[in-house]
């Protein structure tokens, strides 16, 4: 079935695609159809240029040298912080901490805040929808402190079962860590509602923003979350860029995570004192060029407009859901596009996801097959793995058509 590309008001997909050099490559003799942006997004030329320009013209370590290059590098690095803070609505740029992204961020929070303040009898509330990176660091913190883990379950539709909030979120709950967007089910939980519920019992809300910040307009003041993690590589930025936002008082009271250079104020034989926030959390030479590249990605996204980004994804994901269901696929996650993003997990006929992904690769289509670091979700729905197609600003309905056509080929091999 051929469709005419309907252009959303502000997003000209063909022009967007022209900004991404990798999208003009082929896989064998097929054009690349990249449907794995939930794993990592592709990068526009502007981001690649920003990183190259940094290395070619401004490269030096930051916050160190008394010379022009170092000052320029510091200005670019701190400029990136201000840019990213603005993107998520943080009024104080220094409440954005840089690191490699969400995994490192949740470890920093579970270690620096969790191990310092949790104690036996306290509860950590998670959900069955969490990525392993929002489970394992809390398991480690629970083991170290004697705190207990609790989980909110998932409904058949792939939403969080909020009817359990009343019994699971209690005065014992000290922290509630929840995804802002499921990387396998696509679900967007109602973050503000969860923040209010957490605060009502005196708990903090940690939001795994890996699949949220790239896809929806985000304002930390509106969400009222206490922590929000950012994975730069999933929002058109370089790998190992991003970090986390936290309310300033939390950054002041929690412990650092990585010890080393720059994060100290003074070092003595027996102890050290910490640098001011955000330096306290940025020990060692940082991912300077990557954060500068991420700032360029934010510029690019702001140029598109996050409302347009969201509208485009909703349209493409909606079309994909419709066509997949029409083809007889089983969808994991909500089919109502108003509560979900562009990550679409499915099982097609009896074809194992690994076999399906291999066949799709022959057609130039890149999808993810496996448990997506969501073993609790897989167990909830009784499958070992799913195939996941995930969509972003550069994906088209034609690519959805290519996916559906290739499913037919898989069926002819395995049916």
């Amino acid at each position, binding site marked *: 079935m051929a469709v005419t590309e309907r252009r959303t008001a502000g997003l000209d997909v063909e022009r967007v695609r022209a900004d991404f050099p990798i999208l003009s490559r082929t896989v064998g003799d097929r054009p690349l159809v990249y449907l794995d942006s939930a794993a990592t997004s592709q990068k526009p030329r502007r981001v690649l240029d920003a990183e190259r320009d940094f290395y070619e013209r401004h490269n030096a370590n930051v916050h160190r040298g008394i010379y022009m290059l170092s000052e320029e590098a510091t200005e670019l690095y701190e400029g990136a912080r201000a840019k990213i803070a603005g993107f998520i609505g943080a009024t104080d740029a220094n409440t954005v901490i840089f690191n490699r992204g969400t995994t490192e961020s949740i470890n920093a929070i579970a270690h620096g805040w969790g191990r310092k303040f949790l104690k036996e009898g306290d509860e950590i509330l998670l959900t069955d929808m969490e990525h392993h990176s929002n489970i394992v660091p809390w398991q480690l913190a629970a083991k170290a402190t004697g705190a207990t883990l609790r989980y909110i379950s998932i409904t058949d539709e792939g939403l969080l079962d909020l009817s359990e909030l009343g019994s699971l979120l209690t005065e014992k709950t000290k922290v509630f860590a929840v995804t802002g967007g499921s990387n396998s089910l696509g679900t967007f939980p109602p973050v503000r509602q969860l923040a209010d519920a957490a605060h009502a019992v005196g708990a903090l809300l940690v939001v795994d923003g890996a699949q949220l910040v790239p896809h929806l307009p985000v304002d930390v003041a509106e969400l009222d979350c206490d922590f929000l993690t950012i994975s730069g590589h999933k929002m058109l930025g370089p790998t190992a860029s991003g970090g986390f936002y936290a309310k300033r008082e939390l950054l002041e009271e929690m412990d650092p995570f990585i010890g080393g250079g720059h994060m100290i104020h003074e070092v003595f034989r027996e102890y050290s004192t910490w640098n001011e926030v955000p330096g306290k959390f940025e020990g060692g030479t940082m991912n300077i060029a990557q954060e500068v590249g991420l700032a360029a990605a934010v510029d690019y996204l702001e140029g598109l407009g996050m409302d347009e980004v969201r509208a485009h994804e909703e349209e493409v994901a909606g079309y994909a859901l419709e066509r997949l269901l029409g083809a007889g696929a089983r969808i994991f996650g909500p089919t109502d596009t108003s509560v979900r993003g562009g990550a679409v997990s499915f099982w097609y006929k009896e074809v194992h996801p690994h076999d399906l992904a291999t066949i799709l690769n022959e057609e130039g289509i890149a999808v993810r097959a496996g448990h997506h670091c969501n073993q609790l979700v897989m167990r909830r729905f009784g499958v070992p*793995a799913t195939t996941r197609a995930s969509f972003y600003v550069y994906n088209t309905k034609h690519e959805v058509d290519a996916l559906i056509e290739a499913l037919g080929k898989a069926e002819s*091999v*395995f049916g």
Partner: protein
Amino acid sequence: MALDEIYKEVILDHYKNPRNKREIPDAELTCSKNNPLCGDEITVYVQADGGKVLDVSFVGQGCSISQSSASMMTESVSGKTVEEVGELSTSVRGMLSGEIEPDEDEFGELVALKGVVKYPIRVKCAVLAWDVLQEALAGEGAAAGTSPH
């Protein structure tokens, strides 16, 4: 091209019509393993005597590579000594890692799995059955070594 190589008719045949896919309830040797990456699961049952494999079967679920590999394996090791099974297992691993160019006489239908070499992430699917068998035989191997035969 690669599609034909990896999904040769042999693989699909073994996937759709697996050989020796049954439990041996009173098997002396049995072992189960799974590959959490994709959820492939295989249980192998072995009847052995005097260091010789008399009957091998498997049950499990997973992708075409893991399940066809298990099916082919059961056919290829039946009647071999534990030592010979060990050698074949090493050869199959060599083929899957691209270090050995398989000799059809030695490999038989197992040659069909050669194409997996191009998909490094799926080599784990193909070797799973062999890992399970080797672990199941570990007890028998030790017994055979001390056997008076």
